[in-house]
């Protein structure tokens, strides 16, 4: 299906949850203008906001709304685009959406469809598209800030700077190959290899920033300990909900239970795990195996046992400190809490938030998706190989493959870009 000519016209509520002061509905596609004319009588002049009475098929007034008309292709999606800024009541929005559904060729948009069209129509590059998708899916403030930076080309900027430097190095390597034997301006480049290794190290450093998926999907915080150590109660307390069944019967929680929680603007997933104990019961043992696995891959482990924690970096919680005989916190614990009295809960939250924020990237460190990380890693690999090989023309090929990897993040670049760097740097022409 061709993205513009044969495509359906799609519409969706593109502002936040209702009710709200204003609700914005976007309509994109070849029938956008017709949709606008059907509801508002006529389309205003391009890119000018006008107040119009929106009327349904029967002539009933739906809302007085601000309407805008953006003829393609210079629009966010690259297609004809209309925007309806309605009063943000649920009933108004629902009525207008259902009227739009009645316009021939119009249908509700699928998730991410606006972004997909913008990408297919060349309005945004892949990394911007990925940023926008994250933005739409972002549920926390930190993820949203990150997504906005990415959508505005933040990653493009960072990769562009890395690429610029790599182009300079490639130009130095190529200059030696093409002109090294003939031009006095091109001397043997003894620093090239160490400069390559430096850039490779920097690329690796870039990768050390926390993965974007984690910021979007939430850090995994596993609550573990022996049976009946108060894991489920703690989860219910932190999440403020009844996620886990609290029961004095050991072995109640047999599988992993997950509760998404927002803590200090960071998304976390609290994971309740089966109590760890030796058991012959098949199902419980399966649950324990899963718990052990969850402990290994957790971003943070909250350990509620009195014995040593299975991970050295665990936050050791002395739970149920309101109980008789547990009033004194042992030296092996980091915090003593009671979900009943609330004692220590604030301190635990602070400990957890502190641990999590250490995973957050530095302010201007960028987060990347798996695809982008893979490409940066492959670029670093090619550079490392280039720094190792004793054959100069093979090193140049590695540099080219490295450039290709970066190009796949932001697009474009060709031989000419390298030649521009070469002829800008060296005086060639014997």
């Amino acid at each position, binding site marked *: *299906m*061709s*993205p*513009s*000519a*044969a495509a359906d016209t799609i519409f969706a509520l593109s502002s936040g949850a209702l009710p709200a002061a204003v609700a914005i509905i976007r309509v994109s596609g070849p029938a956008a203008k017709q949709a606008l004319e059907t509801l508002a009588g006529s389309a205003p002049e391009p890119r000018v906001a006008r107040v119009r009475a929106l009327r349904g098929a029967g002539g009933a007034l739906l809302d007085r709304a601000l309407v805008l008309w953006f003829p*393609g*292709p210079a629009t966010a999606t*690259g*297609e004809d685009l209309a925007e309806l800024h309605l009063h943000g009541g649920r009933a108004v929005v629902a009525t207008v959406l259902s009227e739009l559904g009645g316009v021939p060729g119009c249908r509700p948009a699928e998730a991410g469809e606006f972004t997909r069209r913008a*990408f*297919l*129509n*060349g*309005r*945004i*590059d*892949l990394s911007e*598209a990925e940023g926008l998708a994250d933005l739409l899916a972002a549920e926390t403030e930190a993820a949203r800030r990150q997504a906005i930076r990415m959508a505005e080309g933040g990653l493009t900027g960072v990769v562009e700077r890395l690429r610029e430097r790599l182009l300079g190095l490639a130009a130095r390597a*190529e200059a030696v*190959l*093409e*002109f*090294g*034997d*003939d*031009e*006095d*301006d091109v001397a043997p480049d003894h620093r090239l290899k160490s400069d390559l290794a430096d850039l490779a190290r920097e690329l690796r450093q870039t990768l050390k920033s926390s993965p974007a998926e984690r910021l979007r999907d939430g850090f995994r915080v596993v609550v573990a300990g022996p049976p009946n150590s108060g894991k489920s109660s703690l989860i219910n307390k932190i999440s403020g909900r009844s996620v886990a069944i609290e029961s004095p019967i050991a072995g109640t929680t047999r599988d992993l239970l997950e509760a998404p929680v927002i803590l200090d603007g960071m998304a976390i997933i609290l994971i309740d795990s089966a109590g760890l104990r030796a058991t012959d019961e098949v199902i419980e043992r399966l649950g324990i195996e899963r718990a052990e696995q969850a402990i290994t891959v957790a971003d943070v482990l909250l350990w509620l046992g009195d014995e040593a924690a299975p991970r050295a970096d665990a936050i050791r919680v002395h739970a149920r400190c309101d109980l008789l005989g547990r009033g004194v916190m042992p030296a092996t614990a980091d915090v003593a809490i009671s979900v009943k009295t609330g004692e220590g809960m604030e301190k635990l939250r602070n400990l957890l938030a502190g641990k999590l924020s250490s995973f957050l990237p530095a302010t201007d460190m960028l987060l990347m998706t798996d695809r982008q990380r893979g490409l940066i890693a492959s670029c670093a690999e090619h550079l490392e190989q280039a720094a190792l090989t004793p*054959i*100069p*023309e*093979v090193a*140049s*090929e590695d540099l*080219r*493959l490295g450039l*290709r990897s970066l*190009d*796949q993040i932001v*697009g*474009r670049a*060709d*031989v*000419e870009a*390298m*030649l521009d760097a070469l*002829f800008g740097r060296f*005086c*060639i*022409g*014997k």
Partner: protein
Amino acid sequence: MQEEFDVLVVGGGHAGCEAAAAAARRGARTALVTMDARMIGAMSCNPAIGGVGKGHLVREVDVFDGLIARAADEAAIHYRMLNRSKGPAVQGPRVQADRRRFRAAIQGIVAAEPNLSVIEGSVDALLISGECVQGVELGDGSHVRSRTTVLATGTFLGGRLFRGSERQEGGRIGEGAATRLALQLRAQDLPIARLKTGTPPRLDGRTIDWAVLDRQPSDRELWSFSTMGPGRVAPQLACALTRTTPETHDIIRASLDDSPLVGGAIEGRGPRYCPSIEDKVTRFADRDSHQIFLEPEGIDDHTIYPNGISTSLSVEAQDALIRSIPGLESAVIAQHGYAVEYDHIDPRSLDSRLALGGLKGLFCAGQINGTTGYEEAAAQGLVAGLNAACEALGAASVLFDRSESYVGVMIDDLTLQGISEPYRMLTARAEYRLHLRADNATTRLGEAALASGAVSDPRRRSIMRHFGLRADAKCGRPIQEDGADVFREIEADTLYAPYLARLDRELSQIDATAGVSIGAAFDYRRVGGLSNEMLERLEAARPATLGEVSRIRGITPAAVSAILIAVRGIAA
């Protein structure tokens, strides 16, 4: 109507001679029209053939029995294998050629070609009927009819010479220009623009103080350009080295006022890798000296070519700047340098046979396509000549792939990307650089050469023998004494094999959709969101596959995806 010729070639330079000879070898009745038959095979600028990338082209043309390698061997008075300290893929054979011997060698081959006639005259116009070119009209009003025509006009099409404030019509000093032809082509609404190039003053070698200069002797190791060549036949001469001085740069800066380059008299862009000395002094103001190679133009010729100081400054400035250079203090200029500006056609209007889309039967080769260099010209001459012959004879086209040859890289670059400055071959342009070596041209292109039907019997035997030797070596049979080249070639194959395997993997991964073909009638305007610039480039280049789309400058991956989706939508 009866055509006198199957193929008519306009121009007797490196592109024209190669085109005419290739067409004739292919069996076409061929005519070469030139203003002055004595100038056939002239080297207008530096007396050298080959280099990194360029030498690769020469070897490839040689596999098809071309002229340039054989003539270069006949004329070579100084050999140098560039990049000897690096791997075989980037080693570039280059020779200094005796101008007269080179010209004589080319003229000898042209004269010996039974299917080839030389016509002296200036081509004033193409004979165009409807959308078809049917031959040419000469300056005396006579018509020469042909089925196909190859334009290899070099710097002569609308050529204008510049030196200081002097202006003159011409394609080379002392010769005329194809001015009327240029006007006719412009009237055809073809995409024509201007380019410029330049040449340095020539010195009288007897007035140079050689004793104070460093010498650069010829390579001792024996190699030659052509596998069918005469070997090393001419006596070897040395080149010498000198440098510009701060005084030279002062003289140049003081004379920039009457420079046609600075003053804006020249609108065409010149090559960045072959800048004039005034360009170098201006653009690289921090350098206080530039190297100059003093290259002999011939054995019984006192002319010296000072490579590195191409200039279009005034005669007075040239005299002064030469005297400021060590060894040249009392040197006499035999011929002053100048710049030449000429018409070229946007090569994106050509197909991969170098045929022009708009006018049937018309092919273009050499500088008219926006390139620079003898080697680039010769390689295009081969492509245009072979295919003009094939079209005239109704035979299948001879096409070159960029993964198999530098010829293919160049044709693909020209017809897809177009040019913004005179195009020169560089190894960096080839993504399969490690495979496209100067030492394995026969292995890469031998079969295509045999299939082209344009090689002589001795060449055919030489190619077959090469294949035989390689096969022997692969089976572990001992290589005969004269198979040392084959042995070295196989060694190089082994050296690069792991890297090529990796490269293959990477490139095939990236270009999984590269083979998706795009119909000739595909309308890019139906793909939403392409910028006007992208539309312009796509419509000018008319890429045949998605891989070609992705190679066009300025086309983003998002645009490639959008085009893919649109193409798939049509196919579905």
